[in-house]
C-alpha cells in the first residue's frame, strides 16, 4: 500500500516533468520563456559544478539560519515572559494583533535606505516576519498549560525555573515546534525575497541576474533548487517535530493562527 503510494507520487512528478518537456517542444509555449524540462535538468547539473552557485547557496542558508535563530530565541523568550504574566498578556494582545499582519515587505524601502544590499537587510526582514509565527505559537502553548499542574507544582514549592522546565516547557514544546516549522518556511521566503529584490547576495540574487541577462534555463534551474531547499526545510522541521514529540500522547493539531 505504502509502496504503491510512493510509486504514484513519483509517477506524478514524472508527469509534471513530461508536461514541461512537451509544452515547449510542441510549440504550445514559447521556448524562450519555458525551456523543455530536459534543458532545465541539464542546467541544474551544470550548476552543481559551479562554485558561484555553491557560494550563493551557502549565503542563502546562512542568512536563513541566522534570521531564524534570532527569531526563535527572541520569540520563545518574549512568548514565555508575556504568556506567563497575565497583565502583560492583556496589555500586549492588541499590539501583537496589530503588528502581526503588517507585511514585512513594507520594510524593504527602509532597510534599503539603511543597509543597502548588505545581509543585514535580509536579516531584519527575516527576523520581523518569522518572529510573529514563533511568538504567537508560544503564547498559545503557554496558555495551554494546565493550571492545576502549575498550582500543584507551586504548592510543592517548585522554584520558578523548575516550573518552567518541568511544566511550561513540555506543554509548550509542541507549539514551539509548530512555530519553528511555520517560521522556517516564512524565513526562507523573506531571505529569498531580500536577495531577489534588494540584491543581498544569495540564490535569489542569482535568479534575478540570470533572468535579467536572458539565461532562461538557468533561471528555472535556480528556481527548482530554491523549491528543493523549501521541501528540505519543511521535511527538516517535520522530522524535528516527530523526533522531539515521540513521547507526546497526542499529536497536536495546529492551532489556526
Amino acid at each position, binding site marked *: 500500500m505504502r509502496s504503491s503510494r510512493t510509486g504514484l507520487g513519483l509517477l506524478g512528478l514524472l508527469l509534471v516533468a513530461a508536461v514541461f518537456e512537451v509544452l515547449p517542444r510542441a510549440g504550445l509555449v514559447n521556448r524562450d520563456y519555458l525551456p523543455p524540462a530536459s534543458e532545465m535538468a541539464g542546467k541544474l547539473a551544470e550548476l552543481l559544478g559551479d562554485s558561484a552557485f555553491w557560494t550563493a547557496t551557502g549565503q542563502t542558508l546562512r542568512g536563513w539560519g541566522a534570521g531564524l535563530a534570532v527569531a526563535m530565541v527572541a520569540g520563545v523568550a518574549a512568548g514565555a515572559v508575556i504568556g506567563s504574566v497575565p497583565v502583560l498578556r492583556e*496589555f500586549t494582545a492588541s499590539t501583537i494583533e496589530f503588528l502581526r499582519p503588517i507585511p514585512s515587505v513594507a520594510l524593504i524601502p527602509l532597510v534599503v535606505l539603511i543597509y543597502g544590499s548588505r545581509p543585514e537587510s535580509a536579516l531584519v526582514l527575516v527576523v520581523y516576519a518569522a518572529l510573529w509565527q514563533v511568538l504567537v505559537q508560544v503564547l498559545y502553548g503557554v496558555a495551554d498549560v494546565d493550571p492545576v499542574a502549575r498550582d500543584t507544582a507551586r504548592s510543592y514549592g517548585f522554584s520558578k525555573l523548575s516550573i518552567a522546565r518541568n511544566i511550561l516547557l513540555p506543554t509548550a514544546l509542541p507549539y514551539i515546534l509548530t512555530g519553528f516549522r511555520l517560521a522556517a518556511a516564512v524565513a526562507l521566503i523573506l531571505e529569498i525575497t531580500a536577495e531577489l529584490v534588494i540584491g543581498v547576495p544569495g540564490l535569489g540574487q542569482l535568479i534575478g541576474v540570470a533572468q535579467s541577462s536572458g539565461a532562461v534555463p538557468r533561471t528555472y534551474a535556480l528556481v527548482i533548487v530554491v523549491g528543493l531547499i523549501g521541501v528540505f526545510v519543511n521535511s527538516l522541521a517535520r522530522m524535528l517535530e516527530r523526533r522531539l514529540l515521540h513521547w507526546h500522547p497526542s499529536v497536536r493539531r495546529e492551532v489556526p493562527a
Partner: protein
Amino acid sequence: MIRRIVAAVALPVVLIALWWLLTANSTSYFWPPLADILKVLPDTWFGERARTDIAPSIARLLIGYLCALVIGVAAGVAIGISPVLRALTEPSLEFFRAIPPPVLVPVIALFAGYTGSLSKVITIALGCLWPILLNTVEGVRGVDEVLLDTARSYRLPRHSVILPAAGPQIAAGARQALSIAVILMVISELFGASNGIGASVVQFQRSFAVPQMWTGIIVLGLLGVLLSLIFRVAEHRALAWYRGWRDAERASR
C-alpha cells in the same frame, strides 16, 4: 469593560507616543519626526494617489486572490476525494508549495513582462494557489466518514457536505494565502511597475523623499491590518458553528 479598552489601547498609545517623542527633534536622515510623516500622509495618499495607485494595487490583489480561491478550492476538492489522484499529485504539490512565491515574479515576467497588471495578477494568484489547494485537500480528506455515509444514505450531493465540513481547514489556507497575496502585491510592484502602492514607495525611496517613504510603509501596514481584520470578521461569521462545535468537543473530553 473599561479595563479591557484601556488594556487594548494603552500599549499602542505608549508606542506611538514614544515614536513621536524620540523622533521629535530628530535630524537623522532615516528617522524623520513622526509629526512630519503624518503631516505629509494625507496629501501623499488621499489625493490623486488613492485612485492611481491604491485602487489598482487592491484591485490586482483581490482579483488574484479570488482566482486562487476558486481554482484552489475546486481542484482541492477534486484531489481530496480521490485517493489515487491524491497519491499522484501530493509530491508535486508539496514541491510547488515549497517554492518561495517571490521567485514567481521574475519567472512570470518572462512571459508577461514586469509592467502590466496581468503579470501581477497571475503572480498573486499562483502564489496564493498552493496553500489554499493543499489545505483544501487536507480538509476534504479529513471529512468524517459517518458524515459522508449520512449524506449518501439521504442522497445528498457530496459537495454539499464536503465543502462546509472542510470549511475550517479551507479558511486556514485562505488566511495563509492572504498574507502571501499582500507580499506578492508589494513585490510585484517593486520591479519597475508604473503604478501601485509598492511602486510609489520605491519611487519615494529612490528620490530620497524619506517622510513620504514612511507614509508608504504606514499605508502598507494599515492595508495588511485592514485585510486581516475583514478576513477575521468574515471567518468569524462563517465558522461560528465550528468554534461552538470545537469547544463542545473539548469540554466533553
